[in-house]
């Protein structure tokens, strides 16, 4: 059995990012789209930890802790916004808000 290398972790991060990206591009539901952005986020976080481990320092992990804190606060804000949007139009479809275009 081959040992886990940097490439494995990067592959996992990339796959997570891609799943999130594809989900964001294909789904209309605001909550699902939001979940997909979180998925992309975590893909990047895995990359950071992997590189940090690879270089043998803790900078990557430190960054990720900050990143998670910010992601958590941002998630609470975003979900609050989604609820507000839902109350306005009674739907979670992102296309309901097309008239916001500039």
């Amino acid at each position: 059995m081959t040992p886990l290398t940097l490439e494995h972790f990067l592959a996992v991060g990339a796959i997570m990012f891609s799943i999130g990206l594809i989900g964001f591009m294909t789904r209309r539901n605001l909550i699902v789209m939001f979940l997909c952005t979180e998925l992309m986020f975590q893909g990047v976080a895995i990359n950071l930890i992997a590189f940090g481990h690879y270089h043998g320092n803790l900078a990557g992990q430190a960054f990720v802790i900050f990143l998670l804190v910010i992601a958590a606060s941002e998630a609470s804000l975003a979900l609050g916004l989604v609820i507000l949007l839902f109350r306005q139009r009674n739907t979670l479809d992102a296309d309901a808000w097309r008239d916001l275009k500039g």
Partner: protein
Amino acid sequence: MDQLFAVQHAYLIPLLPLIGAMVAGLFGARHLKQESHWPIWIGVGASALLALSLLYGMTFGSASATPPDDASSSNGPLLQPIASAIEAYPLARSVEWFTWIQAGDPNNQGSPTHPQVVYGNPTASLHVSAGCFIDPLTAIMLCVITCIGFLITVYAKGYMSGESGYFRFFAYLGLFIFAMTILVMGDNLIMLYLGWEGVGLCSYLLIGYYTEKPAAREAAKKAFLVNRIGDFGFGLGIMLSFLAFGTVSYFGQGVGTHTGLLELAIGNTAATGFQKLAMHWIPFLLMIGAFGKSAQFPLYVWLPDAMEGPTPVSALIHAATMVTAGVYMIARCGTLFVTNSAAMTTIAVIGCFTALLAATIALRQFDLKKVFAYSTISQLGFMFTAVGCLAPVAGVFHLVTHAFFKALLFLSSGVVMHAMAGELDMRRMSGLKKVLPITNIVILIGCLALAGFPLSSGFFSKDEIVAAAFARSPILGALLLFAAFMTAYYTFRLYFQVFQGPLVVPPAPAPAHGHGHEPHDHATASHSAVETDTAPSSAVDIGQTTHAPAHGDDDHHHSHEPWVMMWPLIILALGAAFGGFFNVHDALGNFLGQSPSFDLAWKLTTVPGANFGHAEAAAEASGGISWIMILSGAISVVGIALAYMLHLRDRAAAERIAAGLEPLTGLVENKFYVDELYQTMIVEPLRLLGRVLYVIDRTVVDGLVAVISRVPQVLGFFLSQTTERGYLQGYAASMLLGVAVILILIFMR
């Protein structure tokens, strides 16, 4: 002469009028008001004293003294006398005040073979010093400018009082004296050009002084634009001088060092082909500038119109000083001109032609100032003929005497204008000697001088010019004599018409002629054409005091001849009467001959009759009382006699003769339709071209800009229609696409 205060502090001569102008300009509107003449009086008066002390020191000082050994130590870097130059020219000094322009590496003297040629030599450097060159020519010019300038500022106090913008007038006047002194003092062509443009600006400002008069504004613009044509040629001439000789300084480090333009122009043996070519064209280019500024034939049309300005301005700028700048320039740059016989012939012929043309037009002018304006053009033509005939001494001599008598005539016509409430049409006045007794006497002196009556100042100077012209070519001399005859006739036509005969004064003030003054109440009241008997009484008591209690009106003059206006006239009349004796025994000529400009030019010329102020040549040219003197005196008397017969004894005669020569009379009265010709041949085509260019600008150029500005607009419209449709995923896709493109660009590189 190094010890002279006026030499060591020569910078004061232009500086004092400038300070006066600044004080008058800055504090005149609020604080000085009707006292605004004081700073100018003080500044110009001090300048005049300095200039006179300079002239006095040069003529009577220890000119031939050995050069002081400690000159450099006592005077610091101010004076740069070169011992050999001082021996050769004891009266010439270069004073460098400071470096004005330094372009390029001062140590780089260009190519070793022809160090001075700048053309095709990109490493050459330009050095222009702000400094002055003092020699007899400068001293004479300075005296004329500052002394006549001072007299005219004194006169202007009386003439302009009560005008709105009184301070503005005096500020411009001070600025003019500054520019004019810079013009004649500068030691290089760039300084000359600075003064040249400065006087042009002041001329523009002062012609257009009555800004509320459309004619004055038009005249100011015309003067400025016509002068631009000349100045363009002049500028090209300066540039060509620099290209050919690498310097614009007259004498560089000093006379005798062969570093200045005027001396480099002499050393023709080692000249390159380009220098020879330049020597051929520089005089013609400089000449164009002189023709513009001094109102010679193709470019003279601005001067008659310039009479829209206040009369003191006409006297100072458009008769005595500024218009003579061209003569000064040609006399100063003598060595550039004298070897070029084509250029000298052109100058002489154009000068003679202008003298004739303007004299002819003056025959049938009826406006006092217009007659004198054409007369000025004509007399400037005489001066140009003189310098063109290699007699710059005669030209400068006539410049000096003309400055006196023409300023006198203009100022006298200003007195007439004042007394007649702005009326200047000589057909509407007559016999004014009863109203204006002093003016009658001084204007008679001025007219005699202008007519060249024997022993008046104009007689001597004009005679020298005629003699020089005869020495060059009998035809030229004969034509000048004819012009002198016409001069005598039209001058005395004016005098007899206006000052002699029965008293007639204009019945009512003509509003159109008003020169900004309120109508002179008591003047018009006491001279309403019927009560001729009151005129002598007002003529007897000239002083202001006798009338002052009757009219408690401070802004107006209480006599037709206030003393503040009469004193300058009397002094000028003395100059006009006796100015000719300056040149007794060729004193002026010998003095001017010590100027390097004259001396070096004289050494270059071999033409007989040339008068550069050298005793042997001058004696050959004039030789005491010559037949030319007798002839020109006689012609002047004949002209005056003709004017007497046609305009005093039988006044209808002139009109009968004029009617008999009808097509010719009309032609002359309309000034040969030169203005109309210029209008149709030059102005209108240019205006048409301007309109065409305007349309092209509006459609083609602006259209192109409009089309180009449409491109991003249309692009943006399509982009917004395709990408900004509100689909969240659409934005995400375009972001993704952008990132992808950037990544591809990075990794494919």
